[in-house]
């Protein structure tokens, strides 16, 4: 009875792990242009994030350190990436930011509590604080976030739109 149950659970676990590993391998292969189980280190962030994780740049740096070669070659091998990433997904680390938390974050920046940020305010925070955006990242965010009529960032609407886009 007990043993059978254990056996079944074990099987289930293995199949979950196998599924996760296939997911990771698939995402990895999109960037494996040489078909030799390696990807350019600069693509690792994209791969990790596309698997549903939401690490900060700092978190990413830590993960990379785990999978880089001792003598960095500019490439990451699937061999090293797979076990690390499997563990991350199994432990459900770096969970995505829920919509309400994101909203609160914008509200914190909105010192006057007026429901919007000025373009300048957003730029200042995003490019000077935290893990600053590059100019390209900033421009791209502004192109979608700024309401052309008021020239402000109505963050509630922005968030809702982005969430719809993703689904």
């Amino acid at each position, binding site marked *: 009875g007990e043993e059978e149950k254990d056996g079944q659970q074990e099987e289930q676990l293995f199949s979950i792990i196998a599924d996760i590993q*296939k*997911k990771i391998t*698939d*995402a990895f*292969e*999109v*960037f494996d*242009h*040489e*078909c*030799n189980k390696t990807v350019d280190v600069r693509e690792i*962030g*994209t*791969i*990790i*994030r*596309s698997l549903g*994780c*939401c*690490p*900060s*740049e700092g978190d990413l740096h830590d993960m990379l350190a785990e999978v880089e070669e001792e003598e960095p070659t500019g490439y990451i091998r699937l061999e090293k990436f797979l076990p690390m990433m499997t563990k991350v997904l199994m432990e459900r680390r770096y969970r*995505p*930011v829920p919509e309400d*938390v*994101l909203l*609160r*974050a*914008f509200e*914190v*920046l909105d010192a006057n509590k*007026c*429901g*919007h940020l000025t373009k300048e305010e957003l730029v200042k*925070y*995003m490019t000077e*604080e*935290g*893990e*600053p*955006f590059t100019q390209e*990242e900033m421009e*791209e*965010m502004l*192109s*979608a976030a700024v*309401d*052309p*009529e008021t020239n402000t960032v*109505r963050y*509630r*609407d922005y968030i*809702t*739109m*982005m969430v*719809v*886009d*993703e689904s």
Partner: protein
Amino acid sequence: MTLLLGGISAATLLDDTASQWHFAIKAAILIQRWYRCYMARLEMRRQYALSIFQSIEYAEEQAQLQVYFLHCLPPSFLDLISHFLNSPSDFNTAGSDVQLLEYERMIVVPDSYHGPRLSFPLTVADTNSLLHAFKDQQHLHARYVLQLLHETKKVLKQMPNIIHLSTSYSKEITICGKMTYIASPTWLFCFLLQNGLPSEENPYLFNGDFVDRGKNSIEILIILFAFLLVYPNHLHLNRGNHEDHIMNLRYGFTKEVMKKYRSHGKRILNLLQDVYSWLPLATVIDSKVLIVHGGISDTTDLDFLNLFKRNKVRDHASIVVDILWSDPKNQNGCTPNKLRGGGCYFGPDVTARLLKRYNLKMLIRSHECKQEGYEISHDGQVITIFSASNYYEDGSNRGAYLKLNPDLIPHFVQYQVSKCTRKQTLHQRVSVVEWSALKSLREKLYSQRSELIAAFRQYDPNYTGRISATEWASAVESVLHLDLPWRTLRSRLVQLAPDGSVEYLSCFNDLEIEPAIKEVQPALVETLYRYRTDLEIIFNIIDKDHSGLISIEEFRQTWKLFNSHLKIDIDDESIDNLAHSIDFNKDGSIDFNEFLEAFHVVNKFENKAGHCHISNLFDSSFCFFMAWPSGT
């Protein structure tokens, strides 16, 4: 606020400003984190959209090369092809001025023709009038086209296989790769306006692929050749893999010429074939920079490349194929280019060896679509330059050209032609490309429906209609042979059951092939749809006078050849019935273009402006959300 407040002690809360600032930083990091994740997922979608396009393109090109290598075709078919390929030229090779005059005599340009009238030798006035005429959507009369091609051939014949250029007098040389699918002659016009006309200080090199896939290939070609005649020392051309009559048959250039020039079309195409064979294969700048269309292989010998008679070689001797079809890879070695079906993948060691052997500094090539319009590989020794922006779809990629100064340092100029005047967000751009890629892929799946269903059924003996994701991916890969991330794509192609298994018949739900003739059996319809491009090529070969019509007997012949070539199991009676039903006016001839165009896949739920519909959807939803009053 809980998450943001976590871990802050009461003492810190007393210092209001400090804690406020602390929260603000944390908030900023959170937003940045979220945003980067969103962008990464978009990037992933764009990547796999591009790999879909690329896989399909290369698989088709590969099929093309195979036809050309005549592997599996029966002898009677070879006869058919060689008849087409070796049609005798219309004039003997007496003095060329005689021939120019022959064209004058043979082809009358009517007074009603308001396009450019060229006089040879060409001058800047002629090139100007051509640019303006094409910008205004005019065509050049067949007689001038023939004369132009004739003169171009004369000029090209004088050139060696490998051209040597020097930058000693020029400020910069501009290098463009792949003009096919360039928006229009208008683009070329603006480009030349901006970058300057060819001159001693401003020479140009066009690195192959001037034709196919667009609607104005012949006009682009005419402009390039006209400039070649007017500025023979300042405008240079390398041959690309699309400067080939079989490629043209397949990728639309032949059709374009026949449509625009009708009875003169065949003569133009024949002469063009000649001209292609005389295009130089490579260029070397300052004895330091080698430029070819595709790439190299470990057997590329530049000395031999320079010596052999380039117009005599059966186009597909491997030495030429390597130059026109190879792609660089990041790992060492030289392996056959399985994706393309010809040429090879050459590694950094192959490049290094060749550059060292001939004392060269770098290799510049085109041939592959790159997202940014260019790419540097092999430690800076190989540059890929790709000038056709939006190659697969609006927004799929940027185009770029290269400017090389006398220090041989490359400087890239990127651009993107865009239909929209309002700047689209990345999400909108990616969605358009992705939608288009998935559409192509769905059509591909549909075209091999029977085979796919048979493969799926192998995993589903009890006909439950469901198989696991892994089984689905294996089955699709085994039938389509397209190396794509099927598991990742699965949710966009097919419906999933709650337990994650795949309802494999659902990917065929939205599509159907709309056959022109109702009486045709579904199996035949599917076969005709799948092989329509191959059929088109064979029809074009059979239709010797390019009238667009073939007789019922020829149709039957074609089908028999096709049957044996592809081992399709369609009986003679069905073909006969089909032939008779297609013969709408019962005069014994079939308009095969109409016939082929009639067999296309349609989305049952798509309206005529299907594509526009999707992007309008995004536009309107964007505005809608922005209209919400604040506080709701």
